[in-house]
């Protein structure tokens, strides 16, 4: 059979994790029905198929060191995610990936890392942090400071793992919510305000930002005020995509394609591409 760039690999849903109190975000653990999992890096994405419905892009939530499986965290949103959420463990879906660039791990080497995430877009940051916290990769970055905000405490993804990260060395975790519940003891603050208050050291740091557009918009000036250069701020972008290989024409920001040239861009690059930053 001819292989072509649009033919997905068949993957079995090995496990489904219900992530949040509202039950509309599920993590799908996929194992290949045939072949191997193609090697990937944090920040890359794949097109996930539900046969008969279509395809949509999702960032890898798993880290490459987790062998034999991949994970995608999916919010119920449109037609495809609706159907994906109806599938049970054992069902077979399609996967095309990895697609896109990744976080520029070489640029993080020897640097402190400030990671700023919000809402459901945290998935790709989980891949990055889990990767950098493995013993064989921990030396690739210095101190990691993570800011992660959601609307309310029930909406944090990967809660058991967040708890483990609290004890990690050279790692500080700053969780925040827009609105607390009775059990919440952490800060109630918008992500940009918390970043400003904590004011992590930036002399030898780079930052990674991924989240809803308003969070990104208000966080960027804070990071720049703290002393980060626009070349040291990395942003993972999202756009509607179909092909994932720079052909279908949807996801361009100016002359660059988010699917092929991104999804990770520096703030400097984004400022050259669009007026939105």
């Amino acid at each position: 059979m001819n292989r072509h760039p649009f033919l997905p690999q068949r993957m079995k849903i090995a496990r489904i994790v219900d992530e949040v109190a509202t039950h509309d975000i599920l993590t799908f653990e996929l194992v290949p029905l045939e072949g191997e999992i193609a090697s990937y890096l944090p920040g890359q994405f794949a097109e996930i198929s539900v046969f008969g419905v279509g395809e949509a892009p999702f960032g890898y939530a798993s880290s490459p060191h987790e062998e034999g499986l991949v994970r995608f965290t999916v919010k119920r949103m449109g037609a495809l995610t609706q159907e994906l959420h109806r599938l049970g463990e054992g069902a077979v879906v399609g996967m095309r990936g990895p697609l896109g660039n990744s976080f520029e791990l070489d640029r993080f080497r020897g640097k402190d890392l400030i990671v700023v995430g919000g809402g459901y877009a945290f998935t790709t940051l989980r891949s990055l942090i889990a990767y950098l916290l493995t013993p064989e990769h921990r030396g690739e970055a210095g101190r990691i400071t993570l800011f992660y905000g959601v609307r309310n405490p029930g909406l944090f993804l990967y809660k058991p793992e967040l708890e483990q990260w609290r004890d990690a060395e050279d790692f500080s975790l700053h969780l925040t919510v827009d609105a607390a519940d009775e059990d919440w003891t952490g800060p109630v603050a918008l992500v940009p305000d918390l970043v400003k208050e904590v004011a992590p050291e930036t002399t030898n740091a780079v930052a990674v930002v991924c989240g809803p557009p308003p969070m990104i918009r208000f966080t960027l000036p804070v990071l720049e005020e703290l002393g980060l250069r626009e070349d040291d701020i990395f942003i993972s972008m999202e756009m509607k995509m179909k092909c994932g290989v720079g052909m279908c024409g949807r996801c361009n920001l100016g002359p660059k394609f988010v699917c092929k040239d991104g999804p990770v861009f520096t703030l400097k690059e984004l400022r050259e591409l669009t007026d939105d930053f």
Partner: protein
Amino acid sequence: MTRTNTSDSLWILPADALPAFLSALAENGELWVPVPVGEGARFLPYREGLPIDLTQTPPAHPAKSILFPHSEVLFTYHRGDDGIPALTVPEFDSRFLVAFGVRSCDLHAINALDAIFLKRSVPDTGYQQRRERLRVIGIACLSPAATCFCDRMGGGPFDTTGMDVQIVPFEESYLFRILTEGGNQLLNPYLDYFQAADEGAIRKIAALEEGTSLQTGQPVDFEDLSQAIKTHNDDPYWEDLANACLGCGICTFVCPVCSCFTLVDEGTPRAGRRVRAWDACMFSTFTKEASGHNPRGAEVARVKQRFFHKFYYCIENEEPPGCVGCGRCVAQCPTSIDIREVIRHYQREGT
């Protein structure tokens, strides 16, 4: 421009022998010809008795559909009793694929399509196999339309770029000019249908070529145009165009370069197929996300996307420009949006 000279291999086919020649050719491969459909002409697979229109300049529908079909099955899926979907990719044809009666504009467009489907990232396998099988019997344009401006975009009525054979309509016959070894191999088995061109015929055709001119302006300086458009992002001119645009997308469908597509599943959860189909950046749903967010929700953003892509993004990415001067969008836009006016608007004086 290639001038007729006696070192070319030149053959004459009487017009009444054309159907027999095409039928013979079609026995050994896939043959696409321009067929009158309604008021336009479109490229369709040849079969005996099909009318052929070699006069429409250019055919209303572009030849891109030969390499980039309007819809193409990428794979089929079928779930057995175990519920596991089996995926099957359609077999590719391995015979030659002849595009007959294609004009210079559409052949220049293939350079742009190659950049997208073969060079931009991974090669698109379906496009690649058709491209490798492609042999082109192009046709010279003796009567360019009022909307033609290929002469400003790198082509010309007698330009032979991308052709293995060029035909020139000539009295009650066609001159076939073999230009490549591929063209030679293609025609060689069928030379019984032809007569060798004599000196008189060659002189008459050379005169035809001399007499056919298209002089719509100076060749466009694409670097210059690209910079001008890049630096006029907020020009009110784009709003003027957006106000005129209906968002119907006809400009993209008739464009030989436009190649935006969508991927859709057709079928039931049990069995069906994934299809690639033409789509258009002029539709508001093209970039609309599941959340409702739409980065190009405004008409002006879509109008800019069309022209920025053609004249700025392509050049910036070192790909061929997204316009070859076929004039189809000019002829077919219901509100007379004219890409030549856009070029004029941003070309510096004196160029």
